[in-house]
């Protein structure tokens, strides 16, 4: 510790990265907050102080909050549907695989492959699958419903007025369930076999082994999964652009920010949305980072 000639070179080697992260992560975050508090509301940059003006505008913006077809409502519905769907499918797949099945490698590869595909490319095929037109002149799932004689299931998908954003979560669930499966599979396999065996010796049914031994062990995995899915969900952008474009009916905060910058040239308001996104995600992340670093130190 005291021997600077020992650790000095290490610090020197990492210092370019420290400086880059300090400037480009923390410095630019500060700069963005400053833009959000400025009067830069046109294509001409301006850095005069304007207080919370942009935030106040956002609050009274009918597209932002909180009625039907507003950004905040959209992102909440999307997030809830996405997290519940992905967690349920991910845990189910891991549960089905955890005791070892023939062809496990094949199943795992199939479930994970959507992770390799961009949301832009996935959006192309999901827009086809979720074509909102009625079955006889549509593509995708509505046609299948029509042919199977369950035409009443045909629906407007992502263009549905109230719950469209839940349908918008389907491609995201498709893309990330395999990831959550991989997390849980590693979690299941991390439960010591002796613990299960001990519970069985005590006469516990298989159901009770899971309920009282296995699942309690998976709590840290669930926490990680929630954090990962939560932060992906709040900033969702490409998927929405690929499927819904700039339409108001599927607009989320990240998309609105993009429209504000590129179409309306309202930089302060765009920066205000970005700041709010950062705050929302930080509330999720910071306690988790502290918890992770601490438990690593204790281990």
């Amino acid at each position, binding site marked *: 510790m005291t021997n600077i000639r020992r650790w000095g070179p290490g610090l020197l080697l*990492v210092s370019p990265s420290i400086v880059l992260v300090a400037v480009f992560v923390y410095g*630019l975050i500060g700069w*963005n907050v400053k833009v959000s508090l400025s009067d830069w509301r046109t294509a001409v940059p301006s850095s005069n102080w304007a207080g919370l003006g942009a935030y106040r505008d956002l609050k009274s913006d009918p597209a932002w909050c909180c009625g039907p077809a507003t950004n905040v409502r959209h992102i909440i519905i999307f997030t809830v549907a996405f997290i519940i769907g992905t967690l349920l499918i991910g845990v189910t797949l891991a549960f089905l695989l955890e005791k070892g099945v023939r062809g496990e490698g094949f199943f795992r590869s199939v479930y994970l492959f959507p992770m390799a*595909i961009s949301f*832009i490319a996935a959006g192309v095929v999901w827009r086809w699958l979720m074509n909102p037109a009625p079955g006889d002149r549509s593509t995708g799932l509505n046609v299948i419903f029509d042919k199977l004689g369950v035409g009443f299931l045909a629906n407007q998908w992502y263009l549905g007025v109230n719950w469209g954003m839940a349908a918008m979560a389907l491609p995201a669930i498709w893309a990330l369930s395999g990831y959550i499966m991989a*997390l849980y599979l590693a979690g299941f396999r991390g439960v010591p076999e002796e613990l299960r065996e001990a519970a069985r010796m005590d006469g516990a049914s298989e159901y009770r082994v899971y309920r009282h031994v296995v699942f309690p062990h998976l709590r840290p995995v669930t926490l*990680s999964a929630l954090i990962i899915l939560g*932060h992906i969900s709040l900033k969702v952008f490409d998927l929405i652009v690929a499927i819904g474009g700039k339409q108001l009916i599927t607009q989320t905060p990240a998309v609105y920010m993009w429209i504000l910058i590129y179409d309306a040239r309202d930089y302060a308001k765009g920066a205000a949305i970005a700041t709010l996104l950062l705050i929302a995600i930080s509330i999720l992340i910071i306690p988790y980072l502290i918890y992770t670093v601490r438990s690593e130190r204790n281990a």
Partner: protein
Amino acid sequence: MTSTAAPIPVAPVAKMRRRRTVEANVVRYALLALFVVIILLPLYVLIVTSFKGVTETDPSHAWSLPHVWTLDGWRQAWNSDQYGLLPYLKNSFKLVIPATVISCMLGSLNGFVLSKWRFPGADIVFTFFLFGLFIPYQAIMIPLTQLFGDTHFPEGIPRLVFAHVIYGIPITTLIFRNYYATIPNELMEAARMDRAGMIRTYWSVVLPVSIPAFIVAAIWQFTSIWNDFLFAVFIITDPSSWPVTVGLNNTTGSLVTPYNVQMAAALIASLPTLIVYIVLGRYFIRGLLAGSLKG
């Protein structure tokens, strides 16, 4: 009484259990297969539609196999004037290769120092990096584009390479740090006994065993940079420098583009990452698990 009574209930239970496991297995494989079908359904649509002629992409043929298999859609999506993705593909390769290589080198050096050549406060620096893993990039996008403009940073792809390298520091550092933590300290001690300096220790002890971590980090960076849309759409203003995600969105975003061309374009844009996934799948999973902070 008890001694003779005991075995009696055991047998039926065992038999029942066996039957139950057979039934459970049938259910298990049925469910697994069902999910395989669901997950592969979009891939089926992509492939089948991409080989159809324009006339067959109407609703009445939506899910059927092509009557006539044709490469028309692929040809148009590949290099036609109207839809061709080829120039954007080239841009993506020009972006993703240097960005991935530089990120991996930086990550390896950082990870080595933060786990094996530690300085006081190394954990704090690591946490300081980690936060950068989760920030929404929207929160730096406006100042970043402004900074590029103000400093007259070379336009186009160099800006994207720079951005992906910087914002890749947290994840690559994490992957390498977690990997190096598994190298036994005795190896390091041996080098220390030889009075080897930091660079020599890295070069002759650590680097030779780093290949798996390089593969994991490279796959992660390759995939996420190839698939990135957000940075590209904010940073690149000139269409001739668009990477393939932006080009694809531009081709398919227009509702008049025929479905066969759209699907072929989506497949072409996904092929590089799909090939990486198929060839190096098990490293891909490791990278994913590293992303959850528990490598």
